[in-house]
């Protein structure tokens, strides 16, 4: 059974169609790039999968069920903007995650934080932006989830942090689990993708295994994307 299936999914805001007839399936054990320019519906689609929005029409099934308590247990979600209370210390956030998610592996998070030399008693608002991004990623990747959804995990980070983020994703996703990464910074992440989904103006314009697409077009995913969506 597919991990995620969208059937004729539509979402409107104020009579404006943000997502039009999305049909999509995500299978197990894959790293998928959800690629599109800014404002094309990536975050809306992600929020629908995470049950933070409800579809105007059509349906989403997670492991065959409508999004709800069950899907929130199996999906580990990194939102585009932080939801952490910045007055908290790292240790408090860890406790918070531990109480909230039964599949949160606190020891794993502590180990990853240690590798970064991040002090457990540090306050979040005292940390640099890059460090805060790494902390959030560690929290998300330390859950034994079936699906990791990362919304723009590379937004505004330096190249060294970017490498760290890619490494952390690769070495920490549970075997058999899938990862969806939404981004417009394609060249940075394309080498780790199994499959790509191009989304534009609320519609899915292409889905393909990444290597097949490179072979067919004799170009990088980044280059193909640029050709596809030339402004």
């Amino acid at each position, binding site marked *: 059974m597919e991990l995620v299936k969208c059937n004729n999914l539509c979402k409107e805001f104020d009579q404006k169609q943000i997502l039009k007839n999305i049909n999509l399936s995500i299978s197990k*054990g*894959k*790293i998928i790039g959800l690629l599109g320019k800014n404002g094309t519906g990536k975050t809306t689609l992600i929020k629908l999968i995470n049950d933070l929005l409800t579809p105007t029409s059509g349906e989403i099934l997670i492991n065959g069920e409508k999004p709800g308590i069950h899907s929130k247990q199996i999906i580990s979600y990194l939102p585009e903007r932080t939801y952490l209370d910045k007055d908290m210390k790292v240790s408090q956030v860890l406790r918070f995650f531990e109480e909230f998610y039964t599949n949160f592996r606190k020891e794993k998070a502590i180990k990853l934080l240690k590798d970064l030399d991040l002090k457990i008693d540090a306050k979040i608002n005292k940390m640099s932006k890059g460090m805060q991004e790494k902390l959030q990623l560690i929290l998300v990747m330390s859950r034994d989830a079936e699906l990791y959804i990362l919304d723009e995990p590379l937004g505004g980070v330096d190249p060294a942090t970017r490498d760290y983020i*890619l*490494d952390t994703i*690769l*070495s920490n996703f549970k*075997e058999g689990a899938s990862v969806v990464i939404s981004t417009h910074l394609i*060249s940075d992440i*394309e*080498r*780790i*993708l*199994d499959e790509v989904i191009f989304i534009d103006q609320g519609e899915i314009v292409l889905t393909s295994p*990444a*290597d*097949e697409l*490179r*072979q067919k077009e*004799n*170009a*990088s*995913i*980044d*280059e193909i994307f640029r050709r596809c969506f030339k402004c």
Partner: protein
Amino acid sequence: MEPIFDNERPIYIQLVEMIRIDIVSGKFEKGQRLPSVRELALTMKVNPNTMQKALAELENEKLIYTERTNGKYVTEDEALIEKVKKELAQEKVNQYLRSMKSIGISYQTAVKYLQELGGEDGISKV
């Protein structure tokens, strides 16, 4: 060292090329047990599925084989390793001769220069 990939070519093909070189150069010795797919993927910093695909291709070429339950091993077939090595050498020789030709150097001179300028350990004296 971390490999650098060319995003314009399928990643799995580049992995096949890299591991093939590791085998003919003896970095992975004949008959040696390979690290697991996941470990290999982590050291090369690629997706485990992509590594799996690359290993399947090398298995097709008989350069590696799977021993049920025990993992993957480099072939014991020395003749095969030699053959693949020669094919790779052929490519390199072609490249060398082609680039010499492109700067107007004939085959005979190219061979002479190889000995004259190459140095004894095969590394340029310059």
